[in-house]
């Protein structure tokens, strides 16, 4: 367990479940295995995210970050525990949320433009307006000239950015992002991070942001949550990031608060990864 230092708190900190945009309480997630057994991915986990809070989730690979987001999105039913969205227990899909998935999930039969526009069209915006706004959004993510391409004609990073535009254009109250900037180069990451922070600052929403890039997590988030290695992953650290906003994420790395947070979280994480590495080879 991470030692709560100056800037860190005990797990389960944050807003109380009542006022939270997303509140997981005692959420436990198990998968059935083909051999008849089960695999407990996530053990009783409490996590609450305020409606205007940006929470980054980090953790060793395979620990259960995507699984947790899936549960919050209503795509997975927890084996026990409850998920509440704005105080309402979630049953079925989380209709208030936008979700940028970790794996490719653009509709391959729609062009980049259509893929972005569809979120608006579904909500009843007229085709023309939806396409205009989608074009604008493609521009924001640096793909203005690629609107006519089908997904298989785009590079990995381009597809990811189309996905980003697809989610953000709908302006959902809750945003789940699973390694959104993974296949982007460092420079583009900064640009996209700026874009995201800009939007978020202008009109605050709840964001749950999974990343492997600790610097990214710290520079973007209000809180960084660390998960332990699976199986039975739990939240083992919850670190508020006290760097004031607005932040200049390309310069933030020089801030001493950044460095302190980074050092501490990195240490906690490293331990956890090595533990996970041993575990997933042996037990499970």
């Amino acid at each position: 367990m991470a030692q709560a230092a100056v800037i860190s708190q005990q797990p389960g900190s944050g807003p109380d479940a009542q006022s939270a945009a997303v509140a997981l309480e005692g959420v436990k997630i198990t998968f059935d295995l083909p051999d008849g057994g089960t695999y407990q991915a996530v053990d009783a986990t409490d996590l609450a995210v305020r409606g205007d809070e940006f929470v980054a989730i980090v953790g060793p690979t395979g620990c259960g970050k995507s699984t947790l987001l899936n549960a919050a999105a209503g795509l997975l039913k927890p084996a026990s525990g409850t998920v509440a969205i704005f105080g309402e227990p979630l049953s079925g899909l989380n209709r208030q949320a936008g979700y940028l998935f970790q794996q490719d999930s653009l509709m391959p039969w729609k062009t980049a433009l259509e893929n972005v526009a569809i979120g608006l069209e579904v909500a009843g915006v007229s085709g023309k307006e939806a396409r205009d706004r989608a074009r604008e959004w493609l521009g924001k993510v640096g793909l203005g000239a690629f609107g006519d391409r089908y997904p298989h004609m785009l590079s990995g990073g381009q597809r990811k950015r189309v996905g980003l535009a697809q989610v953000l254009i709908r302006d959902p109250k809750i945003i789940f992002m699973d390694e959104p900037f993974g296949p982007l180069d460092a420079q583009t990451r900064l640009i996209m991070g700026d874009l995201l922070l800009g939007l978020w600052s202008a009109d605050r929403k709840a964001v749950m942001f999974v990343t492997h890039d600790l610097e990214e997590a710290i520079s973007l988030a209000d809180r960084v949550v660390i998960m332990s290695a699976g199986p039975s992953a739990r939240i083992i650290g919850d670190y508020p990031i006290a760097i004031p906003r607005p932040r200049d994420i390309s310069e933030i790395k020089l801030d001493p608060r950044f460095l302190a947070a980074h050092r501490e979280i990195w240490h906690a994480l490293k331990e956890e990864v090595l533990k996970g590495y041993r575990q997933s080879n042996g037990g499970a």
Partner: protein
Amino acid sequence: MKRAKLLLLQVLVAVVVIVIWHLISATTLFGDPKTMRFFFSTPIDVGGRIVQWVIGGTVWYHLGITLLEAALAFVIGSVGGILIGFWFARRPMVNAVFDPYVKAANALPRVVLAPIFALWLGLGIWSKVALGVTLVFFIVFFNVYQGVKEVSPSVLANARMLGMNERQLLRHVYLPSALSWMFSSLHTSVGFAMVGAVVGEYLGSSAGLGYLIQQAEGVFDVTGVFAGMFVLTACVLVIDWLVTKVENRLLVWRPQPAMASN
């Protein structure tokens, strides 16, 4: 591979078949040519008969009726198969309950059904259409059903998170995703629609290609039977070509197959 070369090869195949056929019916290589002619006619006679039909104009009327029946069977069968296929795929309960009945219905011999259709639908084109529909429907149905089940889970999850309701999912996800399944089944069912119409006519009618073929068969007019079958076949090829056109239009978004050379 150039288009011309392809065409040449295709024609070559046809020529080879016709030559073998000619040898069968004109030489003693494969048995007594007289007997062979009795069963297979000769390419020249069949060709002559087709020309005669086309020039004399008799064939157009019959062909028109058969095509109309087949077209109706194809449209009704496919639309029905698509709608019910989607419905079953999206309503696991409905599917589970009716599953055995659908399978059972698919196993009924159509020839036996023909009199029942004649009873219900009279002797006009509709009883033949019904026969064609019973063939087309099941092929399309099973493929559409499977096509819907095969939708990529991550694309589906994404679409649902984008807020699509059931109807929108159908239009934007299930339908496009099932398209290649649907076209695969359409290629089969174009043929079966024709078969259904012809068999229906064959079993009782006063017009159509099946009627022509049946009349010819009763009087040992093999030339007529073969000529009828050729005309039929030619039509199916034209229709199938149209289906392929539409298919290529609708499936532009697919990745081209990777370099085939090894």
